[in-house]
């Protein structure tokens, strides 16, 4: 039970039900499509970069609670950051959900709610798909991102 509750924390379920920044941007400067062929999850990420700072990030798509919540939390967390800081956040997130690193013990790490994902190896890709897609949007990729 504990592992399931750890995975499906209230914060994750809340983001799943009411995703933040679930919309299209008026004038995105970067965009990318992400796709997990294994489960059919699709996510599109748009962002607006100005003066070296991510001003806006939004996403759309269909997916499980984990991928939707991961996208929702991600959009909230990277806004206002430089691309470098945002990508450092991605690396920390990736390390945490794959079990390569512990969650940041500092108080206020809002990504820590995804620490439970490591106990569910089949679900790691659900959590990282939005981040990979965000990364592609930053670097101006034209091909859809695939987790395979």
């Amino acid at each position, binding site marked *: 039970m504990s592992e*399931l509750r750890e995975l499906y924390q209230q914060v994750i379920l809340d983001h799943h039900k009411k995703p933040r920044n679930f919309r299209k941007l008026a004038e995105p400067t970067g965009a990318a499509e992400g796709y997990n062929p294994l489960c059919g999850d*699709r996510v599109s990420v748009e962002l607006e970069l100005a003066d070296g700072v991510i001003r806006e990030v939004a996403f759309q798509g269909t997916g499980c609670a984990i991928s939707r919540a991961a996208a929702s939390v991600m959009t909230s967390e990277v806004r206002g950051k430089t691309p470098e800081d945002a990508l450092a956040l991605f690396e920390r997130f990736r390390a945490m959900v794959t079990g390569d690193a512990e969650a940041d013990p500092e108080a206020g790490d809002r990504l820590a709610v995804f620490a439970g994902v490591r106990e569910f190896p*089949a679900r790691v890709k*659900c959590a990282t798909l939005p981040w990979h897609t965000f990364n592609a949007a930053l670097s101006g990729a034209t091909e859809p991102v695939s987790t395979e």
Partner: protein
Amino acid sequence: MSGRRATAAWDVERVRKDFPILHQEVHGRPLAYLDNAATSQKPQVVLDAILGYFTQDNANVHRGVHRLSERATEAYEGARGRIQRFLHAADPREIVFVRGATEGINLVAFTLGRQVVGAGDEVLITGLEHHSNIVPWQMLCEERGATLRVVPIDDAGAVPLEAFERLLGPRTRLVAVAHVSNALGTVLPVRAMIQAAHREGVPVLLDGAQAVAHMRVDVQELDCDFYTFSGHKVFGPTGIGALYGKAQWLERMPPFQGGGDMIKSVSFEKTVYNDVPYRFEAGTPHIAGGIGLGVALEYLEGLGLDRVAAYEHELLAYGTAALEAVPDVRLIGTARDKASVLSFVVEGVHAHDVGTILDREGIAVRTGHHCAMPVMTRFGVPATTRASLAFYNTREEIDRLVAGLARVREIFG
């Protein structure tokens, strides 16, 4: 069965004893294996046959004059005979060993398909095919400048015969359809479809991957031109399967792959191909797999396919009623004629979340698009949860599935 209910004598607990893998715990709960459409479990007799082959008879087939090679050849060719009788084919020469149904379909597409499909011609499939019965035909059509036509399915997930007949046209050169849908469990009206195609002189391939474990198949009675299935879905090993083809077709088809075993003589100027079915079996085959498959079919026939079908239908009816009673659960695929597949969506919860929660209850189901993405598109869902039953499943396991869905609701609210 003589009027008696066939299931009255079905002792599921005794049958379960034949499958060692079923007796284990997953996440501290007894395993409820409800993913049989993905792959089925193997009875002890199949495991024994494979081990016995490797410990006593292992040798290459069709070559050696030594005793082991003779025994291996005898066992392997004996399995071919077993497959012939299982499918009720007229002649063992009509049975080609393949890796699985996917290879069986590709074999026909790239031999007969290349012979009979030309520019402007059509290949006809249905809207509920597995990707393996879509993509080879797409590749063939692209290569030949032909068109792939798709018979639409109705809201219940059935294939209306009239819709099939409407699309069967003067340019149709091949028909390839599932006997049973993997994603929905729909049993297609294949007998009538074959008759209609034959009236137009069009050969028909049946993808039997989801059928052979659940019903008696008689290729002569069906009068299909080709029938293919995978061993691992019918309680045999992975990597082996069979393609049945009417001798009249196989005789006129060119080889699929070149190599050893498929030739009579080779020189740098000219190679003479072997007779059917060996012409289609290049290279050393999966000998242990073929032997294991033969034993699996023998085991299934020993249980009685009519009794298996009767028990599974009762289980399917029980499961259908049980799932229909769960609030917010919608069954996808409600055709009148179905094999033991329960595909469903839980409103507001993605199939993968359902699958993860059920797994923690020890229940193995498939979640996703089931290699049938067009079916998901047709029903407007990204994915479904699929419980697929075998004769060793129980009502208690269905009850646990329903309880697991209550758990899903508890977590997701």
